């Protein structure tokens, strides 16, 4: 391999030939077939596809919640054997915050479980994380008193409070209203710039995918297969209306809604582009 001479950094997240089945009453159904992806240090990879493409399933298997049928998942070269606090998941559901804990206690929770910091430091770090996401004033509120946007902010703070530099986000803003979503997207990008975490982000919004991601991975549905890949690192908030942004968005749209993809059973091979 000629690549040997290149500085072959071990990817942060690596999934190789991932095939995932899930069990239903009528037997097992293939959710994901032969998907490979890598996410490098500080990269933000977005999985985009229509519902049923298995994007959440891929994220859950990388998180260690779902065991793949075949294929390998490695985090910094080490095989994933189950869930772990080195990869923190932010879910779409608001009830990911534990209702019996205040916002502060929720954010402190992963540190208290890890038990390797004294109480004072745990408090200080939780407060810093909450300030970072703009929740300094709601620290001692219980989750049920918060708005959806605040709940997701708290969940992001809980993800940032640990030393984990890998974030797995499963449509975290999908249940928010449009304005709140925009605000949180901005904040997420700001945090990503500041902290430089590695992000795997699942969404069904084309615009969100191009904005958030440095790279875009398109999946077909039933079962999920990789159909295309885009470099979207150049796009920021100022490019929303730019021709380049529109061109990519249109292309993504065309691939996702290509007529032959309506028929799930016919395997379509699309050349992956970069």
């Amino acid at each position, binding site marked *: 391999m000629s690549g040997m001479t290149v500085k072959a950094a071990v990817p942060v997240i690596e999934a190789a030939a991932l095939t995932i089945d899930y069990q239903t009453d009528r037997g097992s159904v293939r959710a994901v077939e032969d998907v490979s992806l890598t996410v490098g240090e500080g990269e933000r990879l977005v999985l985009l596809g229509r519902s049923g493409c298995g994007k959440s399933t891929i994220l859950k298997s990388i*998180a260690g919640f779902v065991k793949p049928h075949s294929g390998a998942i490695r985090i910094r070269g080490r095989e994933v054997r189950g*869930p*772990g606090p080195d990869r923190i998941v932010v*879910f779409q559901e608001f009830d*990911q915050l534990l209702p*019996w804990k205040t916002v502060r206690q929720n954010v402190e929770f992963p540190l208290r*479980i890890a038990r390797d910091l004294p109480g004072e430091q745990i408090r200080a770090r939780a407060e810093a994380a909450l300030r970072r996401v703009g929740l300094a004033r709601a620290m001692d509120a*219980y989750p*049920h008193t918060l708005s959806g946007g605040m709940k997701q902010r708290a969940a992001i703070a809980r993800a940032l409070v640990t030393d984990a530099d890998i974030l797995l986000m499963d449509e975290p803003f999908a249940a928010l209203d449009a304005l709140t979503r925009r605000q949180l997207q901005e904040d997420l990008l700001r945090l990503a710039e500041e902290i430089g975490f590695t992000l795997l982000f699942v969404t069904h919004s084309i615009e969100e995918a191009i904005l958030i991601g440095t790279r875009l991975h398109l999946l077909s549905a039933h079962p999920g297969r990789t159909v295309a890949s885009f470099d979207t690192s150049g796009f920021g908030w100022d490019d929303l209306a730019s021709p380049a942004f529109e061109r990519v968005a249109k292309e993504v749209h065309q691939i996702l809604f290509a007529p032959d993809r309506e028929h799930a059973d016919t395997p379509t091979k699309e050349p992956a582009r970069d």
Partner: protein
Amino acid sequence: MTDLAPDRPAENAAAAPGPGARAAAQLRRSGLGRKLVVLLALAAIWQVAAVLADKPILFPTFTATMGALWDALRNENILLAAWTSLAVLLKGYVFASLLALVLVSLAIVNSLVREGLQMLIAMFNPLPAIALLPLAMLWFGLGERSLLVVLTHAVLWPFALATLSGFDSVPETQRLVGRNYGLKGPAYVVRILIPAALPSILYGLKIGWAFAWRTLIAAELVFGVSSSSGGLGWFIFRNRNELYTDKVFAGLAMVIIIGLVIEGVVFRLLETLTVRRWGMQR
């Protein structure tokens, strides 16, 4: 005590949740004044009916009952009888609740235990605890041990059922959050499942309490004295034999009052401090 009286329908409906519980919640919100009115109206109806019936030996008036209760409090140590009952009850209640928690936690991790527990619940939950009393007496003799066996039976199955269904309905996301941070085994049960299922667990504790109280009084009626002094059931039984019907009513009133205090003060407080505060229950 008066402000608790309208909670009575809630206790009666305890076996069938849903509309009953909701109606009870509405009643609770309705304020002290209305409760007092209801209570006074009930007392008035009782008084009028008893006066009209004019058979004080069979059906004493409200005032006669209150007089008898007052007398029993002062001269017959009905509080000691109540305490005798409660002390036995608490032992059985705590033991059965802890046992149920252990069993349900095991059922969560092991599907074989789970099937077994579900089967046992299906078998024993409908079996009235009092029906076990003759057997318990045969095996353990006349005494506290028999009572404890029956009490454990009365609390264990309904509480295990409520807790199991509570664990089952813990949101998937919260389970995943716990696993994400590396929680496993007992730590996972204690830090995620139990708090997340607390509304159901408290509900099960309430049901278990009602069943235990009911069972104990009934057992004492059959049993007579379980210790030197005898409990409330024995108080009722003894006074019936001597045809002090007003004292029988006073004993019944005591049973009701204690039930209301536990439901309306202890459990209400527990709920206010936990699930209501957390927005897990309205």
